[in-house]
């Protein structure tokens, strides 16, 4: 796995608006992927990232638009996500758990900052591809069709217990494969 730190060289004559646009285009997708770690869905992630960029734009006199800004962006996105989780945690134990996971010690998720996302996606694909056949079939039904355990069991005519076992196995194996992205 290669971590690549992209250096950005802005031409001096770029106007702040132009620099801002470059930064937006460069980081928007990454930040959404990063936000997606904490949120319920992509729309929520996009909204959070949009709002963070709006804050950055409003504070542009105090910020310099260079490489350093990515730390600010990632930190702000994380804070917004945590705020959201904190807000939701009163409603259910699921969000409460996530809040507990991330509000304390938390690895930054550096790979979202530095890694080529294409590489990351290839690794994920490889990892999924290496699952045993039945395990993969079940896992993909959950991922691609968004089926619940009971629906998968019906579709494949197997017990819910089997689905549960295989889903557990799939995620454990993927975790082993993707270990280096989880630190």
């Amino acid at each position: 796995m290669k971590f690549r730190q992209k250096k950005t060289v802005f031409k001096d004559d770029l106007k702040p608006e132009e620099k801002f646009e470059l930064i937006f285009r460069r980081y928007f997708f990454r930040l959404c992927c990063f936000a997606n770690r904490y949120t319920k869905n992509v729309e929520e992630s996009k909204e959070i990232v949009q709002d963070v960029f709006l804050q950055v734009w409003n504070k542009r006199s105090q910020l310099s638009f260079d490489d350093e800004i990515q730390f600010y962006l990632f930190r702000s996105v994380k804070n917004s996500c945590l705020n959201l989780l904190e807000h939701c945690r009163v409603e259910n134990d699921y969000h409460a758990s996530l809040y507990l996971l991330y509000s304390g010690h938390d690895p930054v998720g550096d790979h979202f900052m530095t890694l080529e996302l294409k590489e990351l996606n290839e690794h994920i694909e490889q990892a999924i591809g290496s699952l045993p056949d039945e395990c993969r079939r079940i896992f993909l039904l959950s991922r691609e069709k968004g089926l619940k355990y009971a629906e998968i069991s019906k579709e494949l005519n197997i017990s819910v217990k089997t689905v549960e076992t295989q889903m557990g196995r799939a995620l454990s194996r993927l975790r082993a494969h993707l270990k280096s992205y989880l630190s």
Partner: protein
Amino acid sequence: MHRVRVKPFPAVLLFVIKLEMNSTINKEQLVRFINRETSLSEDHQIFRWIAESEGNREELRQLYETDRLSRQKNLSAQINVEDSWSEFSAKRLNVSRKTSKPLLNYWTRIAASVLILVSVSVGSIEGYRLFTDSNNTKTLVQLHVPSGEKSIMILADGTKVWLNSESSITYNPLEPRSVNLTGEAYFEVSEDKSHPFIVHTELGLNVRVLGTEFNLRCYPDEAIVETTLDKGRIELFGKNIERPVEILPGQQAVLSENSLNIKNVNAQLFSVWRNNELKIQDSSFGELVPLIERWYGVSIHLDARLRDQGQFTMTIKTESIRELFMMMQLTSNFQYEINGSEIRLKAK
């Protein structure tokens, strides 16, 4: 030998003890939790489990993040940077670059030279604030009308704006023909063919005007933008509209959930709120209800039996809706029930 019989613990108690002493959670259960397949009580159990130790949290975190990574592929299909950028640009235009500190030294100059406020009997403007953006090149004026009041103002170019309650309008006094609106307003735009007048809304629908009268309603909590044209010509454009759409007098365009519907309406009905008084002549319940709905900003459920009844003639000025119903009850037999902004009228 005498044996002492030991009474066993009741089963329930044993179960509780087991849970507390050994709260192991297996991997399948964690994965079910991540996939939202657990029951409420299991969720609770897991919550306690992760609160127990850093190790438990790390275990769940890694599985959870693995799960998120495995869904990563779909993201590229759902996120389009180009679209996001145009969405952002529209938002940036819309949100005034406000800093919370009003700059009072600008106040007099701008108030005197650019803005004339006309207070009318219906109400007043709560206050207008001036904002400057960070590099001090632009000062924005924001006018806000509080709940239950209405107001009217005249912009520097002569355009008249009626603002309904809980609405605000924000603009740069140097560009008075480009304003942002939240809430509801009626515009009587003074004609200037070379400088189109543009109203921006937060839902990404904008109105371009040459010289005209129209009503625009875009309260944030309604999630729709409703544009009703009285006179003239306007064009709607924005990120949620494929290509600019022109609407004609007497037409109303409603943008909701990204679809734009245009229909013919009685346009005057939609701007009735801006008048100082509401005149009702020889009207039945059926004719009266839509007017009252707009006047008071409520929604009324009318008993079908009442629809053709009544023959009301009255003028409403500052009466509350209760006063109005009480007045109507003097000549007509009905009951009313007020529940927030929902009202039911029933035949007795």
